[in-house]
């Protein structure tokens, strides 16, 4: 009975959604309001005005910079929340029912491959972070790749070796690096252009490039540190 009730409820919610969505401007037609209004100007003058060839990065860092500052704060909220809930209770000995939860013995092939690939993955993620404003990529993507690599290394090498990368005194700085970079660049932007998070794109193109680079590196470092800490905290509990 419950399944039928749920199915009926779903059909009830799906109908207005479908009606509303069906009468949206047709998908993919170039003169829909979506493409002619704000994004038309971003595409035409984005490169000169905002100083980034990759318009998406221009929108993220320059036109809608406050969104990404808020976004970086959301990641930090997730970290503070996960730690506030998990810290302090040592994990009981694993006595899961059913499948024994003892981790499967790590095959040497996996550990060798991960250790072999590690430097190349770091190189790739540094490339992704630094070239955010020219090619697809940017702070978040690079940070996630670095975080993923940290997690793989923790599994392969064991927690002791990789925790060195997140020292007790240094970790809070790394975790907060993203918003610190944003506010620093924002204040510099206020000094240069009179608006918070303003970039002097037309006048000093190089300065804008540098400011965007600082933010990308901050987000990359901050994202990686946050994902790594959340993983370590969930694993250790």
């Amino acid at each position, binding site marked *: 009975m*419950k*399944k039928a009730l*749920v*199915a009926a*409820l*779903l059909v009830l*919610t*799906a109908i207005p*959604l*479908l009606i509303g*969505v*069906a*009468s*949206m401007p*047709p*998908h*993919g*037609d*170039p003169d829909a309001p*979506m*493409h002619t209004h*704000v*994004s038309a100007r*971003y*595409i035409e003058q*984005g*490169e000169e005005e905002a100083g980034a*060839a*990759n*318009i*998406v990065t*221009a*929108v*993220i860092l320059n036109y*809608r910079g406050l*969104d*990404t500052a*808020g*976004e970086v704060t*959301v*990641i930090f*909220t*997730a*970290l503070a*929340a*996960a730690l506030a*809930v*998990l810290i302090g*209770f040592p*994990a*009981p000995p694993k006595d899961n029912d059913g499948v024994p939860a003892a981790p499967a013995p790590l095959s040497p092939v996996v550990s060798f491959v991960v250790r072999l690939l590690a430097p190349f993955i770091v190189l790739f993620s540094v490339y992704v972070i630094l070239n955010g404003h*020219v*090619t*697809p990529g*940017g702070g*978040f993507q690079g940070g996630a790749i670095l975080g993923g690599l940290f997690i793989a290394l923790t599994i392969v090498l064991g927690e002791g070796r990789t925790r060195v990368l997140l020292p007790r005194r240094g970790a809070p700085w790394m975790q907060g690096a993203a918003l610190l970079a944003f506010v620093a660049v924002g204040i510099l932007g206020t000094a240069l252009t009179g608006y918070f998070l303003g970039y002097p794109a037309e006048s000093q193109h190089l300065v804008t490039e540098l400011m965007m680079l600082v933010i990308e590196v901050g987000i990359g470092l901050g994202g990686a540190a946050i994902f790594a800490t*959340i993983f370590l*905290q*969930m694993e250790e*509990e």
Partner: protein
Amino acid sequence: MLEALWNNVDYVASVVLFCIGLYIIIAKNNLIKKFLGLNIMETAVFSFIVALGVVDGGEPPIMGPDATPPFASPIPQALVLTGIVVAVSTTALALSLIIRIYRQCGTIEADELREME
């Protein structure tokens, strides 16, 4: 009506995925399964937003030397970038809560937890 639906088949697919996610949240008992359903719902909304910004034959909005005119709109992509990170943040918090719930109540089935209250 049907012809309009066929025009916007992307949006329809997003709505279908949205409803599958909602079904998983409501019908399934396991908290982890509920949360997989929420992630499916979130990804469905993100695919709707990206589909909004698509242009027929649209190039990615990157101003390279050989970039041809009809560009996909950059704004939905900026929104979805932010949305994905919001989704992973919510998931990180929820899974931490699930671990704590399992430690305290020994089960992550919603009906057993309800009796425990």
